[in-house]
């Protein structure tokens, strides 16, 4: 190990390598109930040359490489399963390399955070915006994109994985590859060449959603969007347990809103910092936040008219629904709930607990009502209030279904894990596909995935990473 440390120090510099247990310990676990695991080293890279050398060294020593940015992924993805070297991209590889106004994209290093990007765009390119998550401002933009997170434009644009124009990666062979329209050029790419992902063979698929198992992403171009002048936000309040699904579907396919974020009453109460929030009989079951943007007043009026029409049609079907101005509601009710709108946000009530975990999944829209009912029963059986977060994706083509559990870290892991396992099993059986998936969950998935897919997956992994150095243990590799 001392010899390896010396080699790492030669690559990164003495101050950017640590094997001190005290330094390693904070990297050994995250907010989830996933079991902790210590790395052997943490390194802080600054450039590709260092990383190419690192990959070569890791292949030689057969030591795992675990990419890390801020460790907020809620899937235990940066916890080492078999020791190894954590590559902390968050501290120095965090530059916004280029913003292209003409073709609306930003070229980023992995460590760039949502807060950083928002501030940069607001200050320098206020006509453009990115799509921001209901997550702390210090989560990584690139991490979110390459793990197919979802943000506050998801009803329009879908998964953030779809917003990637191109990647620069370091492969298992230590080659630096640029993927996407940036693939022209020998040594360096033109910053203006990261404008599209297609129509060449889509090699992005070899890296997106692979949880760092196939290579190291060192640059990522993400699409930006016009920042319309006129912005409003509505909220619908639903009094039937599963009626919220009609909102996800019908409002989604009306193509007038940027996003539909639905949460149950317990989550709203949690956001307002009501201790141990539970729904009282007679209170509504769900609410959804509907941000709407428009270029002109007329456009806004037309969108609002459509929204009212959709809501009226739902009422005619007997659905009990209230449509209100969310920002006015926040002023009267509790300004804390504005965090649903002012993204990226610190979710204050989540930080009252030291642990947070979820079953985050892409879900088939037609099973959403059943999912809500079944997961509610599981929560009730465990005597834990249900916290549910849902989204309509890409005009309602599919949905996000995310039961959330906050808990006391170091005390309640076992209890939480049992609940989560039951939820995962039920949801996977109904067709849900977990994202940012912890290894114990992929084990469950493997049992129901078709063998051809698994064989192909294993072959690709083996081909891309013959020594299994890239984040081993993920997806049970």
């Amino acid at each position: 190990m001392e010899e390896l440390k010396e080699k790492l120090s030669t690559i990164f510099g003495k101050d950017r390598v640590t094997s001190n247990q005290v330094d390693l310990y904070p990297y050994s676990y995250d907010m989830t109930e996933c079991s902790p695991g210590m790395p052997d080293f943490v390194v802080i890279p600054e450039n590709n040359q260092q990383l190419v050398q690192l990959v070569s060294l890791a292949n030689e020593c057969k030591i795992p490489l675990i990419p890390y940015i801020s460790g907020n992924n809620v899937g235990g993805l940066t916890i080492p399963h078999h020791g190894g070297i954590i590559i902390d991209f968050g501290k120095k590889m965090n530059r916004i390399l280029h913003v292209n106004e003409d073709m609306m994209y930003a070229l980023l290093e992995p460590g760039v955070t949502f807060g950083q990007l928002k501030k940069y765009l607001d200050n320098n390119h206020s006509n453009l915006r990115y799509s921001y998550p209901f997550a702390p401002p210090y989560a990584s933009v690139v991490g979110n994109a390459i793990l197919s997170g979802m943000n506050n434009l998801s009803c329009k644009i879908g998964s953030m994985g779809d917003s990637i124009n191109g990647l620069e990666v370091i492969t298992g062979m230590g080659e630096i590859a640029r993927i996407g329209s940036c693939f022209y050029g020998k040594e360096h790419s033109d910053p203006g060449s990261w404008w599209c992902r297609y129509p060449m063979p889509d090699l992005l698929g070899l890296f997106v959603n692979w949880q760092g198992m196939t290579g190291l992403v060192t640059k990522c171009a993400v699409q930006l969007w016009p920042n319309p002048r006129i912005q409003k936000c509505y909220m619908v309040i639903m009094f039937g347990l599963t009626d919220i699904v009609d909102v996800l579907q019908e409002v989604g396919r009306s193509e007038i809103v940027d996003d539909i974020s639905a949460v149950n009453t317990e989550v709203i109460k949690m956001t307002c910092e009501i201790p141990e929030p539970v729904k009282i009989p007679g209170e509504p079951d769900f609410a959804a936040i509907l941000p709407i943007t428009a270029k002109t007043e007329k456009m806004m009026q037309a969108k609002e008219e459509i929204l009212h029409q959709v809501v009226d049609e739902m009422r005619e079907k007997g659905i009990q629904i209230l449509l209100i101005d969310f920002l006015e509601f926040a002023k009267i009710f509790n300004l804390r709930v504005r965090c649903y709108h002012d993204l990226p946000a610190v979710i204050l009530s989540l930080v009252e607990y030291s642990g947070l975990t979820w079953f985050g999944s892409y879900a088939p829209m037609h099973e959403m009502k059943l999912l809500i009912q079944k997961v509610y029963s599981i929560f009730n059986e465990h005597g834990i209030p249900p916290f549910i977060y849902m989204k309509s994706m890409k005009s309602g083509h599919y949905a996000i279904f995310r039961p959330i559990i906050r808990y006391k870290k170091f005390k309640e892991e076992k209890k939480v894990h049992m609940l989560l396992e039951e939820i995962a099993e039920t949801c996977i059986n109904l067709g849900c596909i977990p994202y940012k998936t912890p290894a114990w969950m992929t084990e469950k998935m493997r049992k129901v995935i078709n063998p051809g897919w698994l064989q192909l997956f294993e072959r690709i992994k083996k081909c891309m990473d013959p020594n299994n150095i890239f984040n081993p243990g993920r997806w049970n590799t």
Partner: protein
Amino acid sequence: MNGRPDLTNVQVNGREYLEMAFNRCIKCSTCKYSYKLFDQSCPSGEKFLFESYWASGRIRIAKGLVNGDLAWNDKLIDPIFACTTCGACAASCQAPHADFIVDIIESLRELTVKHVGPGPHQEKIKERTRVHKNPYGEDNSDNRALKTKHGLPDKAEWVYFIGCTSNYRRKRVRDATLSFLKKIDIGFTLVDEYCCSSPLLRTGQVEIVEELMHHNIQVINDAGATKVVTSCAGCFRTLCKDYEKFNMEKRFEVYHLTDLVADLLQKGKLEFKSSISKQITYHDPCHLGRHMNSFETPRLIIQSLPGVNLVEMRRNRQHAWCCGAGGGVKIAYPDWSVEVARERLEEAKETGASIVTSTCPFCKTNLEDANKQFSMGFQIMDLVEILDNLELNVKK
């Protein structure tokens, strides 16, 4: 047990400080950068980079030590002591334990001193204070000579608590304060003060702090004073907050000089007759700003100075970049400490100001060190030095 919980035995006492964080921190990184401004704010994290050098990492280390995952050894020293305890993390953290992050770090230091030892060179603070009653190791001044020189009485309503840095190192701050207090004609005196205990508390070396505190309270009481004024932000924070934490019974109120000046200005009892045509920027001392929530009072005073144009640095008030001196860093990590001050002065340069003022002699020390070392070309002045240079109109 007397006063503050005995954190040296984590099995029984003091756990509440640490447990508070264990049960709250999800390591969301909000503490790392200024809230909603997304600016760099943690000198320690920005320098050493690894998670162990940020507040959330230190909370994790505390947990690891308490639950036995980590061993007490000298590898702990840098992550635990390379922190100015400036409180920028606390200003950004939105969790319920935010206000206690500095307490948590200090508790962790106290435990580390017991199990491993103090931070680099910090034992000198304790030894010098034990012997000489000040952390600089100077012969203790009982301030009699100063009292005689300035014709101060033995008993008075006010005591000017000079503080060790002003009394032994930044004497111009002390002399300007004495001169200014005489000009505004409040009845004050000096006492045979000992170190307020701040450097010991900040470095986890708490053995003799109660003795120092008792002494200071006694001599202030003996002077018949009901009010104490100090121009040192560190003394101010300690006399106000830490004496309370140790359940010290004070029969006097404590003011920072800026509070006193602002009060006189507000009541129309003080006017500035001469002017100073300068562009000035104000550096918020952590111990006055973030620790005591006094951001606007010094600014109100500066803005009332005829001819002065107050210009703000990019990071100011609760998100101000630390000067780099506090938390025992100046003695333990002198080179890094000055680097931090240099960054502050670089920021001051962007404002076009010629004077950098502050309200803490220790900030002045470090900013002045960086100013000289890197030829930054500023005039570094404590606010009281500026005030004392002006002609005053004092009304009774």
